[in-house]
């Protein structure tokens, strides 16, 4: 049986999901202020890194990377509510890709598993 990343459609699925996910993030009042970087190309590249990771794809992020990567955001007030919002938008994006309910749960679980790292707890 294919693994999660393959079931979701691999890199092609990430490429398809990234623009919709980024559009959602930028228009969600709860979290858009964390993504105000004007360099859209850099932002999209980072979103791809994020999606590849939570889709269970090949990545090299460690808990330490996630701590460091979000530390400046925690300093700006990043909290559990924001993580919930990201997981919710992730679910919507996956539904639009017609992912199976089970797979969406698995993606959410991966995101959930690093919550404390992201929030630097």
């Amino acid at each position, binding site marked *: 049986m294919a693994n999660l990343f393959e079931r979701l459609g691999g890199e092609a699925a990430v490429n398809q999901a990234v*623009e919709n996910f980024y*559009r959602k993030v*930028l228009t969600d009042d709860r979290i858009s202020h964390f993504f105000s970087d*004007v360099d859209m190309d850099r932002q999209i590249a980072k979103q791809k890194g994020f999606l590849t990771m939570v889709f269970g794809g090949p990545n090299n992020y460690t808990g330490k990377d996630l701590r460091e990567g979000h530390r400046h955001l925690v300093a700006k007030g990043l909290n559990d509510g924001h993580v919930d919002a990201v997981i919710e938008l992730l679910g919507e994006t996956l539904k639009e890709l017609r992912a199976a309910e089970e797979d969406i749960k698995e993606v959410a679980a991966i995101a959930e598993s690093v919550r404390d790292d992201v929030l630097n707890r």
Partner: protein
Amino acid sequence: MAKVTYNGQIVDTDADTSLLEALLAQGCEIPNSCRAGACQSCLMQATKGEIPAQAQAGLKETLKAQGYLLACRCYPHQDMEVRLPVSGAVRIPVTVIEEDMLATDVKRVRVRPEADFVYRPGQYVTLWCDARLGRSYSLASVPGRDDHLEMHIKLVPDGRMSRWVHEHLHVGDRLLLQGPAGNCFYVPGAPQQNLLLAGTGTGLAPLYGIAKDALRAGHQGDIYLLHGAPEPSGLYLREELSALARAHENFRYISCVLVSDGPLPEGIQLGAIDELALGVAPSLAGWKIYLCGVPQLVNQLRKKIFLAGARINDIYADPFLSVADARKAAA
């Protein structure tokens, strides 16, 4: 840490210092402007050592093959030896054949290249006033239709190159030009796709070139060209663009200003260009978009248009980065 030899001097670089910064810090005079990999005025050639791929991004294949690189994008991994381009190697001579004022602060310059020059309308060239001072200008002319290259050059307060162009460049003068570069141009193959071209100030130059190119190619989808300026005096080529709109059913020309002293001349709208751009259709999904001009506006428009449904790969943006933007980015 890598050592770079230039002109007999050895300069140290590290992971956070570009070759350009390292050379400038040593007092070397290296031409430069945007320091963001766009303007290509800091073009150098490596004669030894491995060139990081990033330092060649956006260069033509022929230049890559000869070891040319952009010093502002070059973070050497290994020792290298570099030099400035040998004169005549990448710059071709051109002669000014026409000059006129399009607006109070915009000069149109037409030059004739003295060698074959292959380009697409909307790409840009680096124009050199002397060996050291070069700046990017976009091409409004169309190969095959025009035998000259056309540039629209705005006089920038305290701008070195633009002042020289406005005050000292005249018909008959010869100067050097390098390029072309950039991927903001019309690509045939999707004749039904709707096009939105939006820009302010001399951002019109590439857009005008792209619009004429698309129409010549028989583009069938709608083509909207939006030109914005702070006030009516900043709008130019209104006659030509209105005539294009009359001649082609699928071409729409919209001009807008933020403020106006008197009553607005016919056809000019009062309003911000981003609002008008988003107003051309309920959704911009499936559109191809071209944005040129002041960096802040281009970046802001790019985001808004993306949110309005256009795909990132369908948005071609050419921010006119200047020395001032390089300073802001460094600060």
